[in-house]
């Protein structure tokens, strides 16, 4: 209808959109972002309520009744305290170590003139994309006493037996956690390190401070919010990570929190106790999240602004330069090169004996896994389907939530933002337990759909954050001017906001894809025959053949590295805030 009038030249064309499309626009503008929020809240509340209700139910001869016996059972069992203690030790150590290492790597890459910085910058991020379970089993191939590649190499070369490498047990768990989570801290720290006003450090130097004094009293305090956020994320996520303890602690009978929950769900299962366990973990994470919000809102850290300062590049002396290169090389060797090489060696060997024989190279493991074994074939398709569909749905929900939180007008935005971040701290295995309880007597039980729902519920906040951080950097006037110039809300989304947000949307999609391809904690409780994923298949095969496990791990690795390459190709940014 706008055309007709516009066709006659000289007639004003500033008339309004039709009432029908306006009504649709109004509905879309209000309803769509809200629906993203509502879905997000339902995804969280569902398993929460299910877990809480189930934890307070106990069965006796007369049927179910409300009881605290599950909690009493757990809190009086020494196993609980062993598991909690071990998990605390592991995650606190991993948080401390990866914060130190992550800061060092970020500083080397962003503030020094170390040669090859560009390469290190890329390689430092690779462990972020790898599967922690594969990382743990690859370290078993590398360092297990008697059968590991490294002890055998040393034995063959020097005749020394290296059976003290502590790959099993808490030291092994801590080590692999640290390698795997260092990039998280790195991502938190590298942006503020780059954006820090060099004058702040220069001022300390000209007033007499040494390099180390400046680092300790100026640089690190200024980075405190980023370091604390990074350390907290590592602490919480590594406490809930099931993959590494399953591979490195369980074989030695060492209890941790996630493996204990897994044990309670295994036959003969005690869902009531598992749920009580879950309630305790959820309470702790929610309390921690509230404390962190309080802390961050109380303190102001305005010294690191978004202004594009040119950071001070430190010209290292020869000794310092060697040390910096050495730190980088050690991290990349331990975190990327050795695990990948070990997995490749095992996957290409016929019968794995702990020694790589280049003469006996074979592709039969790949042939079997890809073409002859229905479990792994099914698992590959399931993982791909879950990751492709899940990432797409997750990003759509996350975009709507980010829009609601940062562009909406609701008074409750702050609270909603807080609620929607809750899954960040909830271990996958606990959320998986919640969905297991929720679905157990419904048609959803043992379907791919329930796994998909659990994935999205556990990980949408990561996508929401990625999109939010870019949305915050986009001036709302860009959208407002589209509206004022006659575009409806949907047109504004299509022509203005979504194109501008595209890098963040791609980054969020790839992030979810990677996470879903390797997820284990929630899947291990929710899979059934026919809905196994690659990670589940790796666990199931680990008792059969190292070669099959390694071949499947290589296939998973290819998917993850493909995502990483795509990620580098787009201008997408993973920088956390």
């Amino acid at each position, binding site marked *: 209808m706008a055309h007709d009038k516009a066709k006659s030249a000289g007639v004003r064309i500033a008339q309004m959109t039709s009432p029908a499309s306006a009504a649709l*626009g*109004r509905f879309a503008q209000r309803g769509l972002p809200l629906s993203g929020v509502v879905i997000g809240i339902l995804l969280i509340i569902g398993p929460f309520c299910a877990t809480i209700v189930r934890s307070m139910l106990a069965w006796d001869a007369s049927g179910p009744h409300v009881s605290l016996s599950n909690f009493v059972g757990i809190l009086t069992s020494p196993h609980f305290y062993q598991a909690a203690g071990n998990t605390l030790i592991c995650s606190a150590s991993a948080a401390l170590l990866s914060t130190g290492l992550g800061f060092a790597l970020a500083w080397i890459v962003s503030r020094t003139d170390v040669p090859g910085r560009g390469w290190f910058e890329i390689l430092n991020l690779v462990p972020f994309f790898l599967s922690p379970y594969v990382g743990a089993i690859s370290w078993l191939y590398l360092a297990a006493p008697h059968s590991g590649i490294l002890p055998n190499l040393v034995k063959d070369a020097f005749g020394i037996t290296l059976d003290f490498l502590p790959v099993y047990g808490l030291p092994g768990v801590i080590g692999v956690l640290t390698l795997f989570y260092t990039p998280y801290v790195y991502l938190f720290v590298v942006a503020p390190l780059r954006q820090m006003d060099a004058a702040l450090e220069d001022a300390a130097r000209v007033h007499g401070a040494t390099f180390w004094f400046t680092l300790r009293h100026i640089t690190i305090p200024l980075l405190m919010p980023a370091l604390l956020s990074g350390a907290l994320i590592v602490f919480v996520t590594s406490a809930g990570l099931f993959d590494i303890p399953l591979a490195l602690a369980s074989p030695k009978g060492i209890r941790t929190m996630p493996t204990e929950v897994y044990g309670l769900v295994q036959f003969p299962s005690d869902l009531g106790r598992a749920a009580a366990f879950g309630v305790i973990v959820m309470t702790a994470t929610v309390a921690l999240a509230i404390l962190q919000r309080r802390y961050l809102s109380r303190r102001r850290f305005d010294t690191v602004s978004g202004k594009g300062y040119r950071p001070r590049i430190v010209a290292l002396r020869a000794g310092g330069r060697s040390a910096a290169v050495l730190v980088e090389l050690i991290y990349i060797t331990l975190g990327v090169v050795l695990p990948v090489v070990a997995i490749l060696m095992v996957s290409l060997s016929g019968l794995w004996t702990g020694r790589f024989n280049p003469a006996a190279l074979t592709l039969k493991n790949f042939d079997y896994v890809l073409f002859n074994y229905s479990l792994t074939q099914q698992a590959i398709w399931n993982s791909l389907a879950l990751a492709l569909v899940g990432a797409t749905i997750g990003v759509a929900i996350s975009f709507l939530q980010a829009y609601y939180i940062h562009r909406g007008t609701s008074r409750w935005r702050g609270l909603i933002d807080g609620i929607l971040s809750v899954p960040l701290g909830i271990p996958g295995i606990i959320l998986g337990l919640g969905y297991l309880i929720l679905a157990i007597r419904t048609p959803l039980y043992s379907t791919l759909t329930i796994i998909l729902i659990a994935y999205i519920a556990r990980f949408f906040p990561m996508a929401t954050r990625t999109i939010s951080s870019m949305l915050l950097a986009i001036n709302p006037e860009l959208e407002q001017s*589209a*509206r004022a*110039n006659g*575009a409806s809300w949907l047109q504004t989304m299509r022509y203005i906001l979504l*194109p501008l947000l595209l890098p963040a949307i791609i980054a969020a999609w790839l992030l979810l894809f990677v996470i879903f391809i390797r997820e284990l904690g929630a899947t291990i409780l929710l899979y059934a025959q026919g809905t196994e994923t690659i990670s589940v298949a790796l666990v199931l095969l680990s008792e059969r053949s190292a070669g099959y496990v390694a071949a499947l791990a290589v296939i998973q690795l290819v998917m993850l590295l493909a995502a990483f390459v795509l990620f580098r190709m787009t201008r997408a940014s993973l920088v956390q805030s």
Partner: protein
Amino acid sequence: MAFVKIDGLRKSFGTLAAVDGVSLSVSQGETMALLGPSGCGKTTILRCLAGLETPEAGYIEIAGKVVYDSARRINLMPEERGLGVVFQSYAVWPHMTVAENVGFPLKVRGVRDRAERVKRILELVGLGDGSAKLATDLSGGQQQRVALARALVHEPRLVLFDEPMSNLDAQLREHMRMEVKLLQQRLAFTAIYVTHDQSEAFALAETVVLMNRGRIEALGPPREIASTPRSEFAARFLGFNVLEGVFHGHVPDGSRHVEIMLPDGTIVRGARADSALVPAAGRPALLCVRREHVQLSTPKPAANSEPAGIAGAIRAASFLGLQEEYVVDVGGQQLRVIHPAMGYSAGTTVTVTLAPERCILLHGTRSDAALQGPHQRTGDR
């Protein structure tokens, strides 16, 4: 017949009443400027007009169409109001070319001969040859032109400008001001400007609305607003010196002139802001005078009974080029003076002469003193 009619408009943010019952009307083809310090509510009014903010109460009518009415629960969305808006940040879309930016209002309206119209308007704003460039490759002044072209391309009858010149340097600002004025005369749209810069408001608008704390402080033609403040806020915002004193009495010559006494006992004469002001002796009074209207001279021994002026002392002097700016202490109050260079330096005692017809007297109620102290009143930041 009012083209834009605003009645009883209210909008608050939390406990702050950003717009506190404002009523205005703009006739067709008129240019109005909403002037005031930051936080006075001027931008909120503009955003309510554009539909980017939802008021709590009131009535807005544009071109005979009700776009907002709290009583009837009418609130048209921005795209239903058919306006042109130039944003402070220009809001030029970085992922589109100049032509795509400017053609956008036509595209969403489904207009066919877009290229032709875009070309015409780009020539009009002086960007005839840059249409294929990415918008982010342009300078600030060019982005401003893109924003202007985009706001005008669909020939809206009302165009809103939110601090359109504030990101330009001084020279470019004056140039653009002239161009916008010419465009407005040529295309005959009604325009509402929001600005904190009084010279911009006076240069562009036929009617200036001075705002303070969500209310209209003064409304009138630029010359009247600029020369005759009717409140302490207006005087301070416009850069007048404000001296506090008490009313002393009438000048017995039948004029509107009134005497006021400064705290140190000096008697000064000035004109009442309006005849409704009744000076009762002893009531607090304010004397407002522009910096350019204060006379300074070297003290001479007073020989006769003529008012010899006020004794003052130079506190600070700074050379401005053609003139000099002085800060003069008068009985404990500070007076800023812009004066042909006299070569005075700090510490010099001078005689201050205030021509009564240049001085404006107001009641000394302190309630509307929004701008504290004499420092921050010139031109707002």
